């Protein structure tokens, strides 16, 4: 269940800043413009925490808090007091009120989030799943420049941005400025730098969700095990194999990889099937195909060619997938053609939906069909 935060402040600006501060967290923010409204809102919504301004018209924060303490249903709700006045007398007065914490204006958003996070659990909002085609930010922490260069070259065909840093301390600074989507860290960094970096970033609410991949020699099996036990999302061994590196990144980020199967050639979209197709991938590809068909027709694409020949075990999932893509093509009046191996042709003969399909041997024939 989402956490409820009640923001009580006569300044709409402050209430908006508080809304903004918690935008990445899975919580509901309620608002009140004075203490009287705040009491009514607290009684109605039973928030998990109240951020309460001290100086307000109608009923100030002090009076609201006093009234709350007298009500059994509200007295245990933790309160963080907000004030522009940092004088000693004021701070003492606030401390005696029984509030859990206080914040002096001006304040940075992450200060209020951190203070609330110390009192109630504040989960982050689940992020929308990233796609293979997205501009993903990778941070490689590796003291060997040649390895960084290898990784950059291996991922050069993607839209991913790879930044390399030699030291874990530099990575902490970099993440403070901009959080990377994933971190690849050498497990042989001096003084257990990779694990130290992992622990530091896990302790920060902004970076705790960033997955880590460890880099080490293939023979370092103990190190690989240690990294996995520590919580690393995966390990890539040296010498680095580009396809394994890419697969590890896709797994760690749970990337929607459907779009990597599509290419545009001479006014045609070519969809090259993977070697294995299960129903989950078929659904993702089907969705992606529909989007590609729609955007392709918008941009003047004339045809979709589906190359089924890489499939090692053509099956019903393949047939159902082609049927769904054919429906999308029909909906947007886009012609399509199929390329397939002998195994694909034989499989298609088994099903009523696919018996009449014309399947060509190669791309040139498919484009001419």
């Amino acid at each position, binding site marked *: 269940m989402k956490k409820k935060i009640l923001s009580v402040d006569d*300044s*709409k*600006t*402050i209430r*908006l*800043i508080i809304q*903004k501060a918690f935008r990445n967290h899975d919580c509901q923010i309620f608002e009140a413009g004075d203490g009287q409204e705040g009491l009514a809102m607290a009684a109605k919504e039973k928030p998990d925490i109240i951020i309460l301004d001290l*100086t307000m*018209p109608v009923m100030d924060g002090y009076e609201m808090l006093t009234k709350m303490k007298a009500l059994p249903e509200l007295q245990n709700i933790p309160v963080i007091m907000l*004030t*522009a*006045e*940092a*004088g*000693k*007398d*004021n701070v003492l007065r606030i401390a005696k009120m029984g509030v859990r914490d206080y914040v002096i*204006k*001006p*304040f*940075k958003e992450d200060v209020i989030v951190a203070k609330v996070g110390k009192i109630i659990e504040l989960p982050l909002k689940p992020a929308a799943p990233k796609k293979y085609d997205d501009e993903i930010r990778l941070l490689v922490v590796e003291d060997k420049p040649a390895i960084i260069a290898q990784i950059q070259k291996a991922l050069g065909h993607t839209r991913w941005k790879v930044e390399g840093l030699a030291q874990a301390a530099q990575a902490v600074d970099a993440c403070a400025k901009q959080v990377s989507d994933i971190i690849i860290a050498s497990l042989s960094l001096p003084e257990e730098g990779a694990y130290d970096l992992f622990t530091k970033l896990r302790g920060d609410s902004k970076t705790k969700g960033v997955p880590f991949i460890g880099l080490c020699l293939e023979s370092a099996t103990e190190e690989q095990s240690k990294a996995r036990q520590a919580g690393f999302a995966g390990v890539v061994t040296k010498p680095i194999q580009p396809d394994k590196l890419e697969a590890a990144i896709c797994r760690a980020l749970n990337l929607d990889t459907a779009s990597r199967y599509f290419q545009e050639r001479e006014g045609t979209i070519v969809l090259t099937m993977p070697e294995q197709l299960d129903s989950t991938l078929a659904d993702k590809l089907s969705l992606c195909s529909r989007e590609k068909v729609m955007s392709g027709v918008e941009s003047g694409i004339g045809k979709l060619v589906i190359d089924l020949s890489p499939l090692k075990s053509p099956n019903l999932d393949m047939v159902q997938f082609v049927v769904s893509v054919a429906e999308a093509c029909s909906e947007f009046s886009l012609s399509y053609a199929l390329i397939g191996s002998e195994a694909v042709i034989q499989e298609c003969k088994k099903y009523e939906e696919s018996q009449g399909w014309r399947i060509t041997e190669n791309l040139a024939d498919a484009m001419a069909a």
Partner: protein
Amino acid sequence: MTTQSIPIEEVCDWLNTSVSDVFSTMFSSEAQSVPPLDSHGTTEPLVIGSVGFVGEMNGVVYISVTAAFARTLTSRMLGMPEAEIEGHEMVNDVIGELSNMIVGSVKSRLCDRGAPCVLTIPSIVRGQNFEVQPIKPSERRLLGFQCGTDHLAVEFLMKLSK
């Protein structure tokens, strides 16, 4: 010349620090102390936030920016594009809150120094080609701040002691 036991120049130092703190905290930017512009140095429309303090020491602080800069500050403070800011209400509220924060810090220091006082609620004045003139003898100081390419003026009036 001093008013009571706290020199006005010290209060001006507090104002300098307060403006700098508010800008660095809320906008992650610098408000650099510069010689003040005469009559705010502009005929552009202005937005002025004012907050008074009443108690052992009495005075009022005016925070003055151009209307365009006020919209920029609103956009940055609320994290929304300027095009989405409709009317004056939101801008007035932001300038009022900034004035409250700037003067709130000074009020805290006054209280810590044995001159307790309370703040008035912020108020906003909009217009162009006007001046604020006190009618009773008072100390007046004008401070200027450069915030990137924009200017912020702080006018501080303090009632003289008898």
